[in-house]
């Protein structure tokens, strides 16, 4: 099955071509079948591949396979092959991308049923899956970069899916530009990697890197640049403002791209390059610091947001911050575990939100919702599971993954644990606030909306249920030994992080400390849930309208800490002014002046020279005489 690995990205590519080219001729049912079918087929092949890798891991083998497809670039010393790498890390990512991708494709059949661009949507979704698979399967930085850029492109296409709305198109542009800023970091890092290691293949770089000294400056530079790329792709400070705006796209897009897959590309890339990062402790500190700051900032913004999707967007940014915190404290497996569980419950939450929006006739403001429990039972129950999972309440999956990160943070620095704990408090609060405002209390919307309230069709509810089951059971993937588990995921991924573990040493917390930490965070999450319950259900608080006066803290949070305004003043306006200056002064006055001036000069000189053609023969003879005299003089002088 391993030799069939090239089939996995090929299938969504075929789906893209068929649905894209036939978008105006194929019937909707066929488009849906092709779109979902190719991803399902890719998922089945991925299962086969995963099974083989799993069997090898059980036997204790490192289980890494490279399948070269063709030699691509050969220029001097640079040799880049288009080849795929299958190892435990990419095998798990394959399952997530194709599995959750398939569920979201099925969901989209119901959600986008009445949209005119149905086929175009599926084409773009398939293209995205293709590029994401390239990113995950690439065996060198260049193939990964193809996927990296490609998912940025698909993100642009999908966020701006309803491109006739200029605000949505602007959001898509913003996402793409911020991604590209990160991509510059990636490119420069790739150049440095090539000049340092002479190759771009992972299998060539990482063994060489393992022999380098801790704190090597070239590695420091490379890892910092790679982290810049990760901040762009995974929406960390300072390049995170595109993700909340990206909610302009259809909800399945938010679920797939901005919850489960694309934004995790940064974490995947760092996990893949873990040896480079372990040898650069300064970079890891930067990663952890940025991660925790982002987690707290986004959580602080989320508590006052009223748009259901914006809450989830800021929640995503915050959880990504946790993943980077995990990477920064050396918990590579923990961060990746959180990627997996987050994919489950965040996709679930987004799809659930989509179900609510669908039922509310495209209303997204939670102040118009309320009491939807009775009308949308399946959606309610699955979103309840998702909320409990993300809040980190045991025994659901979020508890295990978040706790592993926090335990490593505690072992690294108590301060980081405290900040992470505060973030977890915020998380529980705003997620339950969202749940209670939407599903509890009495309905606050218009009568017309109330008439349309209905549970979503089967194509939309079945993926919700599947994801809910995964969110519940996902924790079993990596139960820590403190709770009597055998941390299966850590064992599975061991060869990928082996070099790092050798350099950094493993973290050991005694079980008592772990129990205390677990207990504290679980209790705190339950307590915040209760606080939210008291506020939004018992007291029936409804968030204020946009124009109501707020205290300064609330205003800071509601206005997203004015980050967008800051960027506008610092970056956008100077660039616009520069552009206007270059246009008016340099282009129109100087350059056009030169070109038009040359033309004018030619014209004027022509006008002047024309007067020589007087038609007066006497004048012509006179000129001849002058010329002869001049020649004679020249001959005499130089003779």
């Amino acid at each position, binding site marked *: 099955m391993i030799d069939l690995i090239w089939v996995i990205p090929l299938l969504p590519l075929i789906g893209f071509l068929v649905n894209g080219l036939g978008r105006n001729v194929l019937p909707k049912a066929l488009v849906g079948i092709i779109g979902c079918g190719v991803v399902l087929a890719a998922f089945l092949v991925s299962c086969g591949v995963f099974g083989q890798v799993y069997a090898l891991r059980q036997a204790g083998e490192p289980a890494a396979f490279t399948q070269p497809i063709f030699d691509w670039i050969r220029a001097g010393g640079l040799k880049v092959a288009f080849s795929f790498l299958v190892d435990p890390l990419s095998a798990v990512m394959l399952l997530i991308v194709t599995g959750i991708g398939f569920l979201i494709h099925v969901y989209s059949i119901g959600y986008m049923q009445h949209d005119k661009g149905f086929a175009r949507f599926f084409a773009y979704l398939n293209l995205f899956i293709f590029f994401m698979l390239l990113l995950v399967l690439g065996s060198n930085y260049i193939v990964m970069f193809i996927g990296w850029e490609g998912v940025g492109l698909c993100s642009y296409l999908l966020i701006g899916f309803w491109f006739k709305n200029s605000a949505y198109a602007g959001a898509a542009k913003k996402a793409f530009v911020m991604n590209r800023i990160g991509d510059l970091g990636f490119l420069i890092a790739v150049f440095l990697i090539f000049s340092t290691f002479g190759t771009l293949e992972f299998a060539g770089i990482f063994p060489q890197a393992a022999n380098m000294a801790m704190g090597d400056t070239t590695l420091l530079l490379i890892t910092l640049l790679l982290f810049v790329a990760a901040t762009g792709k995974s929406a960390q400070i300072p390049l995170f403002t595109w993700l909340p705006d990206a909610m302009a796209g259809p909800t399945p897009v938010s679920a797939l791209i901005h919850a489960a897959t694309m934004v995790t590309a940064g974490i995947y890339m760092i996990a893949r390059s873990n040896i480079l990062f372990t040898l650069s402790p300064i970079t890891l500190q930067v990663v952890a610091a940025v991660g925790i700051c982002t987690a707290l900032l986004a959580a602080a913004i989320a508590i006052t947001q009223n748009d259901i999707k914006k809450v989830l967007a800021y929640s995503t940014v915050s959880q990504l911050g946790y993943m980077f915190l995990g990477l920064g404290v050396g918990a590579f497996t923990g961060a990746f575990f959180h990627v997996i569980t987050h994919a489950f419950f965040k996709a679930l939450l987004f799809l659930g939100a989509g179900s609510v929006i669908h039922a509310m006739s495209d209303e997204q403001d939670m102040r118009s919702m309320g009491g939807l429990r009775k009308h949308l039972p399946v959606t309610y129950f699955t979103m309840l599971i998702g909320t409990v999972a993300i809040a980190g309440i045991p025994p659901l999956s979020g508890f295990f993954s978040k706790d592993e990160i926090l335990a490593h943070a505690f072992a690294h620095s108590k301060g980081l644990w405290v900040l992470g704990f505060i973030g977890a408090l915020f998380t529980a609060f705003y997620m339950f606030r969202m749940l209670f405002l939407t599903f509890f209390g009495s309905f606050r919307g218009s009568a017309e909306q109330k008439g349309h309230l209905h549970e979503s069709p089967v194509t939309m509810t079945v993926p919700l249920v599947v994801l809910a089951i995964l969110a519940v059971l996902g924790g079993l993937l990596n139960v820590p030994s403190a709770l009597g588990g055998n941390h299966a995921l850590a064992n599975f991924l061991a060869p990928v992080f082996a070099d790092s573990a050798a350099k950094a040493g493993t973290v050991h917390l005694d079980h008592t400390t772990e129990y205390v930490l677990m207990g504290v965070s679980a209790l705190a999450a339950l307590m915040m849930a209760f606080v939210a319950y008291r506020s939004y259900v018992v007291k029936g608080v409804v968030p204020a309208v946009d124009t109501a006066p707020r205290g300064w803290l609330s205003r800071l949070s509601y206005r997203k800490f004015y980050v967008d305004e800051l960027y506008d003043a610092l970056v956008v306006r100077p660039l616009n002014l520069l552009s206007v200056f270059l246009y008016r002064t340099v282009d129109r006055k100087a350059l056009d002046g030169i070109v038009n001036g040359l033309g004018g000069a030619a014209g004027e000189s022509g006008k002047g020279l*024309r*007067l*020589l*053609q*007087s*038609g*007066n*023969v*006497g004048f012509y*003879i*006179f000129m001849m*005489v002058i010329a002869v005299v001049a020649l004679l003089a020249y001959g005499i002088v130089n003779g």
Partner: protein
Amino acid sequence: METVVQQIQGVPLNHYILFCSLIFTIGVVGVLIRRNVIIIMMSVELMLNSVNLLLAAFSAYSGDPSGQVFVFFIMALAAAEVAVGLAIIVMVYRNTRSVDINALNRLRG
């Protein structure tokens, strides 16, 4: 023969050069200034004749006969040129009814 040459060489060569340059200049000025094409033709002949004289003088002073041979050539050439030139003038007169050179300005830019 010797005495003829001696007599000729009694006049210093500079006189001949000056004299011929003067005549040549008069011819040039005539071509540039006069408006009647026949006068212009006459001025051209004047230029040619001045050159003839100078060549003959040089030939006499240096004893080299090739100067005088050249004079023959120039005379023949001048005759041919005058023939053609007068033919052109006649045609111009027939078309424009004037021998004024300023009447021929149709190539004005």
